[in-house]
């Protein structure tokens, strides 16, 4: 990590340093942390596979000015039901009010830039909650995002509102005029009793190299229901480090589905922080990889309070020379008695040079808990394949049917029907199902 890189970001930080007190302290500290830590190298245990530092090329361009992207550039990537959904747009990591379309009434949601929110009535909330869970990731890449948090999004889902239509967040990286480095930041407050589905979609316009370093924090209130979806299919030149923090501030139900279909190096951190008794969470992931893609899913379930339930299922299919990594941490703190935490990771290797690395990591300090974990790595079931072929189903379709069936346990947890169909079509296309 060169001093030059640090100076480069410092310079940009000085240009864009937020003035609102709620942001100033946090951003400043994040910048200091970044300067201190630098980017995580391969010796960092948590970054053994996701080689962030080596991918951080010199010609990556980070800007605090929104480039010119038109609505029609985004059109091909809009998610289903976009006529009724709210669409919030980031371009090269910067929240763009101009491109965003808020279709929910003001009684349901409030979406605005982080800077505006900090200056308005959300200053206190931001001061107390932005970066609340940063301690899970004491590394430079997470800190670097924080330094520019002011350019991000603040979203509030109002108390007791049950949103029928989803909120879509589109992350556009425009690689038509250089290799963008994008750092989107979002803070989402789902207030007590509210219910919402949030889906993040990643879009690379231009098809050149890009690097996204995202952090999204969701604070879920008492009796809220949050469904969070992350859909990654940006193409092989898009590198991605994304961290999703979901904090159960009150007893609630939070679900997450992470789908990774392409990318260069993709690192997804997901933290479920069970801070309230009787909370429930479900975490699903599917990584369907080809070429030389590396997808590294690091998840943490932190059981801080007793009587929480969490269930986690991540599945991977690796073709060609791709690599799937799963690291699942479950922490059960001393006071978190009666915790139920389950974890499972299943992998199918298709390519001779494909690999899967799976590591469950349970740290349990309470004595009355139920925790389980399991992982498998295998090949496609030859007997099942023969059964399908013996009925006249061609080899390619038979493989596709079996792999689709394998993916279904994860896919079925996307509750929004349009979105599920959309993702299903992407998967079927990738598997080459043809009839």
């Amino acid at each position, binding site marked *: 990590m060169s001093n030059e890189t640090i100076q480069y970001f410092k310079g940009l930080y000085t240009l864009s340093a937020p003035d609102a007190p709620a942001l100033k302290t946090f951003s400043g500290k994040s910048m200091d942390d970044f300067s201190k830590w630098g980017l995580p190298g391969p010796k960092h245990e948590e970054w053994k596979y996701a080689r962030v530092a080596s991918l951080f090329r010199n010609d990556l361009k980070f800007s605090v000015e929104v480039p010119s992207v038109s609505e029609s550039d985004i059109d091909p990537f809009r998610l289903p039901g976009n006529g009724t959904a709210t669409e919030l747009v980031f371009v090269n990591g910067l929240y763009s009010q101009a491109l965003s379309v808020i279709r929910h009434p003001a009684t349901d949601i409030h979406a605005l830039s982080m800077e505006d929110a900090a200056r308005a009535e959300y200053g206190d909330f931001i001061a107390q909650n932005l970066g609340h869970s940063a301690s899970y990731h004491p590394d430079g890449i997470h800190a670097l995002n924080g330094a520019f948090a002011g350019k991000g999004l603040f979203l509030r889902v109002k108390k007791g509102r049950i949103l029928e239509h989803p909120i879509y967040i589109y992350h556009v990286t425009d690689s038509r005029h250089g290799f963008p480095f994008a750092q989107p930041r979002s803070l989402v407050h789902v207030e007590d009793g509210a219910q919402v589905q949030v889906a993040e979609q990643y879009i690379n316009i231009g098809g050149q190299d890009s690097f996204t370093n995202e952090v999204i924090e969701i604070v879920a209130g008492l009796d809220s229901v949050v469904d969070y979806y992350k859909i990654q299919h940006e193409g092989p030149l898009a590198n991605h480090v994304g961290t999703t923090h979901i904090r159960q501030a009150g007893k609630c139900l939070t679900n997450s589905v992470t789908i990774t279909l392409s990318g260069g190096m993709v690192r997804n951190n997901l933290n479920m922080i069970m801070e309230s008794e009787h909370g429930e969470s479900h975490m699903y992931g599917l990584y369907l990889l080809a070429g030389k893609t590396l997808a590294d899913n690091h998840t943490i379930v932190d059981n801080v309070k007793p009587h929480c339930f969490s269930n986690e299922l991540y599945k991977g299919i690796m073709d060609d020379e791709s690599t799937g990594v799963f690291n699942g941490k479950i922490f059960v703190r001393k006071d978190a008695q009666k915790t139920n935490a389950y974890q499972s990771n299943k992998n199918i290797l298709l390519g001779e040079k494909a690999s899967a690395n799976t590591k469950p990591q349970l740290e349990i300090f309470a004595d009355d808990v139920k925790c389980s974990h399991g992982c498998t790595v295998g090949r496609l*079931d*030859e*007997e*099942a394949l*023969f*059964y*399908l*072929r*013996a*009925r*006249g*189903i*061609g*080899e390619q*379709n*038979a493989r596709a*049917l*079996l792999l*689709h*069936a*394998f993916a*279904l*346990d994860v896919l079925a947890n996307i509750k929004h029907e349009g979105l599920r169909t959309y993702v299903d079509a992407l998967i079927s296309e990738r598997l080459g199902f043809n*009839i």
Partner: protein
Amino acid sequence: MLKITDLHAGIEEKKILKGINLEIKAGEVHAIMGPNGSGKSTLASVLAGRESFEVTGGSVAFQGKDLLEMSPEDRAREGMFLAFQYPVEIPGVSTTNFIKTAVNETRKYRGQEPLDAVAFLKLMKERMKLVQIDQSLLSRSLNEGFSGGEKKRNEIFQMAMLEPKLAILDETDSGLDIDALRIVANGVNQLRSKDNAFLVVTHYQRLLEYIVPDFVHVLYNGRIVKSGTKELALELEEKGYDFIKNELLVTEQA
């Protein structure tokens, strides 16, 4: 329809089939009986194209074409059907979706238009009656959690949907109680015609009371050692397989 000539096959170094000769004509039902380990299931698997077996000699012509050159899917599309001894459970694939894919891929191979949803459902309803299989079973994942009888009925249902020229039933009677056996046999009998043929592989004579064969062959040590009519099955039932072994011993000594 099917002509097997001096077929040799095995798995890795082990020789299992040591020169099978058999001809099956349209309209005929042949039964292959034999003690455990005689090669009955190997023969069924080799005909269907299971890749773990290696054919080391001989030839198989199916409707005049070289069967051994074909992929498993092409054998099926040409009209070969194997009812599995142990049908595979496939979570996440519904029987309906699976059979629809199979029917339409077969139709495509034959240059026919795919069945639309209405025509497919109509055909399915009609064929479900043959084996008294319930719609709810077909909506579930293929064979997952099915009882032994349900799995075998599902095999015969698939056969009814695919309308094969030659159906090989590999120990379809194993694990079936008498009621399930009757249902399965009844389904098979309704599908019998002058244009198709059946090869029934079984250890017991019991199934042959319901599916009455035109010819019975005894497979022993990788060869067909005796052929006859349905009376041969009764004789085997009565005397056991030892009588064949003893007979062979006498012949070899003589």
